[in-house]
């Protein structure tokens, strides 16, 4: 009997040993992940969604045993959407609180200064929301943009779909209007170039300041152009304003796509009354009904914790959740949370997330493509490419009711 118990203990120890290896601090110590989120200021809506997504992932991974057998704990700090604060925050997180890992904040505007700090200390910096081109030309190899496609290609699916329509169905003219923003403007320029080459005539194009509060004059001009297709580079306030003005002016384009806003769930749909969200498109890397890795679990957990309905979940939360998933898989492959090894690992291989599969090139840019999503029956559904579509695209967009 004794021999068996000694053997039993020996077996347990041998099995338990790998779980104790990897990462300093002992096997019972939680892994701390430092993140600066914008809880005040311009980005506070997105910051809150990021925090929710990150936390849901932490709860999920902890329920399954954590990373390398250790529980994961987030240290969230508020950067109030300010550069000084985000720099200070990551400095403190790394040198004062000695966090094990760092994840990124919201927006390219804050990601760039933050990435300089994280990279300086050799921390891997997977981030959910900094995809503007300059994020990747700073020569840092530790930054990873966890979305399926680099921002500039965000509208690629849309242009492909539009040009794939039969010639007599295809829109003949297009109007473009965008915020002067490192996120939206590059997408629109790329889309316009592609559509012009495909024979769609540009009848209106305008760039407006990001701090504009009154979008009606521009929306009027777009409506006046009577374009067949309207491509807008927006955030929530302008996304809503354009739709409302088009309704007031009885302007019914055959296709309408906005780069951001319609993907913000309830924040968009609760301002557009009468079922008029029908047919509005948005490029997205994620949607509630997608059959992607872990999405069911994510959506259920989100609704259980925060209530509401699937249509009100912000894509920001899914993007944050994906960061966790990517890191979890990378850590799983190398059995360590060492930052240098993590950075190396992230540069190779494919990762499965709620946003689909993704891989990162040498600059940390993802090399996939986003999808086309459309509001149908009060929900956003993926409609293109066919492989991921849940329903066919509605075209032309139904007239305003």
């Amino acid at each position, binding site marked *: 009997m004794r021999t068996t118990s000694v053997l039993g203990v020996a077996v347990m120890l041998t099995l338990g040993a790998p779980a104790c290896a990897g990462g300093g601090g002992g096997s019972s110590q939680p892994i701390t992940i430092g993140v600066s989120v914008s*809880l*005040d*200021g*311009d980005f*506070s*809506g997105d*910051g*809150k969604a990021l925090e929710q997504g990150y936390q849901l992932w932490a709860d999920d991974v902890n329920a399954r045993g954590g990373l390398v057998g250790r529980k994961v704990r987030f240290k969230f700090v508020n950067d109030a959407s300010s550069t000084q604060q985000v720099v200070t925050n990551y400095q403190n997180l790394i040198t004062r609180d000695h966090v094990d890992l760092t994840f990124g904040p919201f927006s390219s505007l804050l990601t760039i200064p933050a990435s300089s700090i994280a990279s300086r200390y050799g921390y891997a910096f997977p981030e959910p929301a900094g995809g503007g081109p300059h994020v990747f030309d700073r020569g840092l190899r530790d930054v990873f943009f966890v979305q399926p496609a680099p921002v500039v290609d965000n509208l690629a699916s849309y242009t492909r779909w539009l040009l794939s329509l039969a010639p007599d169905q295809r829109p003949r003219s297009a109007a473009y209007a965008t915020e*002067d923003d490192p996120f939206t403007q590059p997408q629109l320029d790329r889309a316009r170039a592609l559509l012009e080459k495909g024979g769609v005539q540009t009848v209106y194009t*305008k*760039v*407006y*300041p990001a*701090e*504009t*509060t*009154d979008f*009606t*004059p*521009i929306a*009027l*001009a777009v409506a*006046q152009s009577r374009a067949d297709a309207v491509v807008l580079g927006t955030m*929530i*306030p302008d996304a*809503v*304003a354009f739709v*409302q003005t088009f*309704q*007031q*002016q*009885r302007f019914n384009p055959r296709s309408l796509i906005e780069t951001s806003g319609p993907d913000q769930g309830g*924040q968009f749909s*609760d*301002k557009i*009354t*009468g079922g*008029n969200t029908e047919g509005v498109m948005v490029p997205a890397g994620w949607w509630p009904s997608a059959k992607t890795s872990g999405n069911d679990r994510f959506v259920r957990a989100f609704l259980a914790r925060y209530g509401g309905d699937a249509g009100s979940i912000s894509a920001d939360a899914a993007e944050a959740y994906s960061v966790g998933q990517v890191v979890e898989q990378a850590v799983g492959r190398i059995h360590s949370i060492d930052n240098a090894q993590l950075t190396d690992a992230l540069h190779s291989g494919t990762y499965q997330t709620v946003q689909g599969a993704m891989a990162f090139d040498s600059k940390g840019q993802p090399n996939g493509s986003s999808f086309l999503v459309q509001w149908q029956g009060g929900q956003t559904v993926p409609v293109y490419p066919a492989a991921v579509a849940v329903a066919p695209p509605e075209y032309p967009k139904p007239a*305003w009711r």
Partner: protein
Amino acid sequence: MTTLVLEAAVLGVLTGGVYALMASGLTLIFGVMRIINVGQGALVVLGAYLGFVLLRQWHVDPFLGLLLTTPALFVLGVALEVVFIRPLRTDRESLSVLVTYALALGIEGVLGYLFGADYRQISVWYDTATFQVGGFHVAVVYVLGFALCVAILAGLGLLLYTTTFGAAIRATMLNRAAAQLIGIDVERVSAIAFGIGMATAAAGGVVFGITTAFNPGSHYDLISRLLTIIVLGGLGSLRGAIVAALVMLVVQDVTAVLLSPTWAAFAFFVVLVAVLVARPQGLYGLRVRERI
């Protein structure tokens, strides 16, 4: 093109009315108390949230809800003045900028805590209804908002120019010390002027909240526009605030469609600077020997 410009001009006039309303309170407060209420924008946003809550929770139409929110904000204004402004004895003008900024931050903080940073909008059932005028559509909400602003400004004008209390206000605006000498209770006048300023913010806030998506941080853009309007119009002049608001919005909206939205705001600032170079006191301001 001409229809577009015309539409933009009409839009400029309609939205100009809203800004005129919001700016009128600001210029009134300056005229009576010689303080710059940097918190006016935050109070407008507060008014917008109040309208939002009334609609959401109790299904009260926001315009009707003004019957509640206006007196409420009036009382709040008087209270704020007594508690935070009146104690400032020395350097009142400069310190008031800081105090009202602190109040604005506090209001932003409270609103952020209660409502979060999500964008809201007061969605009335008629928000996409339009009047058809000639070739184009004018949104009903803009017209209603404009009508409200005209009504309130007319009321304000009546108050100032036909009532005894109005005369007291105007006297205090012209010369505070002299007004005191002839027996006007300038402190009381100040408190009430501040309250009126708040009440106009409530009304302006409702119209603002119907036409624009807002969140607690929206007050920064607002206050910078309001301040430039009252300077263009002449600090303390109600007429000036109205004219300046109309000028600003029409210039901006027309520039946005004719030239480019990016230069719209710049065009307005150029107008402002040009006017101030010629007339440092603004369009309708009085040239007085003033010290801050």
